[in-house]
């Protein structure tokens, strides 16, 4: 099964995934129109700032067993095994924030949402773009990511690619493939910053 895979080393912190995610979970599905919607659509993927100002797209890992599901008081959090996705039923959610204590990645937010009962604050997190997947479209964050920090592929394919990358890097005389223009420079800068702070 294909899933969203995060490659943190590639993220440039542009936050395009957040916009795309919010728009994909809006009523109108259009970024242009979504900004004036009520409740205002909010993203389920969160680009966190690292200690050195580097970005990281933090999204739900759909853990199994999921700590949030185990901690959920009203049983609103459940796993859809067919799509290997942990989902929250907004009608059952009581906004108790027990899942906030349980999520080791801090990816759950609490706000009103287009699919929740109007005026009700509920727990909201990534649903692997359930609606888009029904329409055979890939998740919005992956579609928006310009640097392939988010990819949609099978775990096996991603693992193989990583293994190949590592194999190539240890071969003598191998050329490293450029990730994208400007990337080497950015990574070099970050590495220097980190080294300066950790002599």
């Amino acid at each position, binding site marked *: 099964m294909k899933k969203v895979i995060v490659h943190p080393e590639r993220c440039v912190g542009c936050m395009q995934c957040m916009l795309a995610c919010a728009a994909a979970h809006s009523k109108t599905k259009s970024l242009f129109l979504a900004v004036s919607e009520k409740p205002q659509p909010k993203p389920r993927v969160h680009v966190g700032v690292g*200690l050195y100002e580097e970005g990281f797209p*933090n999204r739900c890992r759909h853990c199994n067993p999921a700590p949030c599901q185990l*901690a959920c*008081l009203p049983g609103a959090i459940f796993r859809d095994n067919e799509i290997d996705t942990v989902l929250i039923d907004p009608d059952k959610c009581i906004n108790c*924030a027990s899942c*906030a204590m349980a999520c*080791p990645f801090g990816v759950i937010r609490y706000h009103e949402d287009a699919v929740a009962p109007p005026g009700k604050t509920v727990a909201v997190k990534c649903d692997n773009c359930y609606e888009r997947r029904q329409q055979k479209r890939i998740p919005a964050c992956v579609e928006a990511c310009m640097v392939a920090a988010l990819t949609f592929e099978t775990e096996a394919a991603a693992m193989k690619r990583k293994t190949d990358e590592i194999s190539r890097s240890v071969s003598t005389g191998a050329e490293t493939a450029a990730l994208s223009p400007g990337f080497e420079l950015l990574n070099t800068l970050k590495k220097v910053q980190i080294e300066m702070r*950790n002599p």
Partner: protein
Amino acid sequence: MEYVIIGNGVAGISAAESIRQLDADGNITMIGDESGLPYCRPMISMVLEGTATPNQLPIRKAKFYDTLNIAPIFGERVTDIDVGSRTVQVGTAQSVAYDRLLIATGADPRPINAQNQELKNISYMRTSLHVANMLQSLAGTRDALVLGGGLVGFKAAYGLLRRGLKVTMLIGSGYPLSLQVDQTAGQMILKELVAQGLKVKVGVEVTAFEGQDKVEAAQISDGSKIACDMVVIGKGVLPALSFVPRDHIEVDLGIMVNAHMQTSNPHVYAAGDVAEYIDVARNSRWVNAIWPEAVSQGRIAGINMAGRPVAYAGSLSRNVIRIFDLDVLTGGLVTPPHENGYEVMSAMHAGRNTYRKMVFCDQRLVGFTMVNDIEQGGVLMALMHHQIPLTIPKEALLDTRFNFKQVMTHGAWAASPKAA
């Protein structure tokens, strides 16, 4: 294999599900004193408050026992365990044999020492029945008295305030929730509650209740008298283990278990509010009588009972409280003892109305309190639970921008050979 589970709460339910996942053929018997479907105990305060309905409480469907092929014995308490012949005595007549026994009886409300407790409208708040009774007598009441400033007392007071009653709370310590939150957060909660009309009396106890049929007033240890037509007793809970043979199964405050939730008798396990295991933040034995612990411990107990040895990392206290405009999330040791070795850092952000306090022991996070902006609380819980030594500046955890990436990057960097 004969599995017997005493207790139909979430620890027992989680254990039964875990056993069934690993052992399709074993016989599972569940014994519970509350008849009816297993329900979500923390939500009973929301029923009192009116934000949840009683039909939202059940955590499993009625066919749960059939689906998992469980033989239920409900409405009865276990009176004795014979570890020699491996049987449990249920009520007076029935005895059930076991190969693996789980004690998940939970806890009972701590009784108070006051006269005339049998008057009407005086109740504990532990079961859905208690709350149903409170709701029934709600119509004729105006002044409620809540005994105890712990989580139950606090939730009762909050619920009754929201129902429009005048509420007076008697607290033993200086501020509410003194075991759950630190003093600063406690004062913030108290201020919020007082602003909403709660009256608080500190450092006093009830000595006796007065009234003809229903309660009408309470005599206080300082000699004064408080008029009230409803009383809620929320002075904490005690593990329900009166039937446990202490000469065969080691008992401290709770039933002592090892990392596999196994008691000193290898055929007997314990989990949930009745069990006592190592608290990772305190680094000592502790009963953490909270819902998420019961779920985790029940699960671990079930897996081990079914023959797959899995160790539990340790228990940890935690709480999240949402009242009016405050979100309060706490975990671990919120107010460390004064001995050396603990480092405390805190930060207030007046603009965002947030407060954070972190308690460290060496390089480990062992406790925290956060008010508002609580979304990253789970990351802190995970750092504590897995006892991960911090390699980032401790101040970073106080920042509202703190997120998973900050621990991830640095962990990876520290583990790389270059940094070593």
